[in-house]
């Protein structure tokens, strides 16, 4: 494409409702797992590894 280039897209199908096994989060961030973006999926451990140093 000439005018639009996709930097990232989720590999996971957005309409999959999920298993609910993920860690609970805390929207006010008092707790160990805060915003949804930081969640780790119990089914696929590779998800949300952005906190690991090897990312860069």
């Amino acid at each position: 494409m000439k005018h639009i280039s996709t930097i990232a897209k989720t590999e996971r199908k957005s309409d999959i409702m999920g298993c609910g096994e993920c860690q609970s989060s805390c929207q006010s961030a008092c707790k160990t797992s805060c915003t949804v973006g930081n969640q780790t999926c119990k089914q696929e451990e590779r998800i949300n590894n952005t906190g690991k140093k090897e990312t860069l």
Partner: protein
Amino acid sequence: MVYHPYSNSLHSVDYKAYLVIKNKYEELSPQETADFSALDEGDVKEIESEIAELEKEGLIGIDRTFPYKKSQVVKALCLHVCHDCNLKCSYCFAKEGTYNTARDYMTEEVAKAAIDFLIAKSGSRKNLEIDFFGGEPLMNMSVVRFAVEYGKAAAKEKGKELSFTMTTNALLLNDENIDFLNREMDNVVISIDGREEVHNRVRKTRNGLNAYSHILDAARKFRAVRGDKRYYIRGTFTSYNLDFASDVLALADAGFDQISVEPVVLPADNPMSITSDKVGQVLKEYDKLAEAYIDRRQNGKWFNFFHFMIDLEEGPCIMKRLSGCSAGCGYLAISPIGDIYPCHQFVGEKSYRIGSVLDGSFNPAVQEEFSEITVNNKARCENCFAKYYCSGGCVAASHYYEKDLLTPYAAGCDMMRKRLECSLGIYAVEKKYREKR
């Protein structure tokens, strides 16, 4: 850049494409309208065909919504092992750890009943969590140790996996506790506010002493033994340190690589409150932090800032995005005397008391009310690009500051959007950087 919340996709676009996309899905400003009118017809057609291709893949376009109600299966408990604290932080929502109740300490009997309650309410869910909270949980370590031992055995018997976490101020973090927490906790949050003067101004001991040096030493010791296991340094910023980027960087300079510094949530009449007139300054500070963050991470000073974490390729499933924290449903808090509340911030709010793990009482009406609190049901979230990352924000903040569980805390929304904007920008920059290497 163009971000499509539903598919979690991020696109780099030229200005012409930006105009065509914005004209198609949103409203153009007067200047943009003029620029759009001046576009070459061939360019517009070309861009429209690119958009059509992305639409076909579901990577751009109008968001779909899902009818969704939160599950009432319980998967996580916050155990308030004591309503007492050895610090007297000026901004503490828990009122020196008491939550406006007595300085109670949880007994083994209550801890056992809470774990039994969690397992009984967890249905077919396998992975369960217990978070040790306070007050200061290290002040009741015998019950923490008991709960871990009992919880592991009870979970094993029922074929469940139980993980433990703790939020602590580190004042009692001695060698023995460090060894135990490192061994048993899946994640540990240590509260430090950043620069020494910032921390000492608001986080004094009960008898008014400065404890920064002691806490920093203990936290560093813990960090050293923690290795690659999960931990965070968790700070709070107030109107006293709106230049909080310096606190984040000070924590990184102190040797911590997992950092979360959050805005205080206080009523507007509190001098430390982040009132709407201060939000602009906070947003600028996030931009400043983002620049320093990119620079440091590319130049040998890597650290992770909690709110700049984003995973666009493998982000959470739509259920998680819609449900958020699950307060009042999958996540509940247990007070030291065994009372059940929707979350740790509701503890002590009598109208939200759900029941008791000791006498087995449980009012399903509260859980029912909370099960409807999803991002779909929040009018303010409807057109917000951040809605699948904040999931409508903190329910307790909505309750305390907007007096309505379905109305997101406005100042929090502005900050959330800025953090997401920074995260997306950082993501794009770092991706380009990785590709070049």
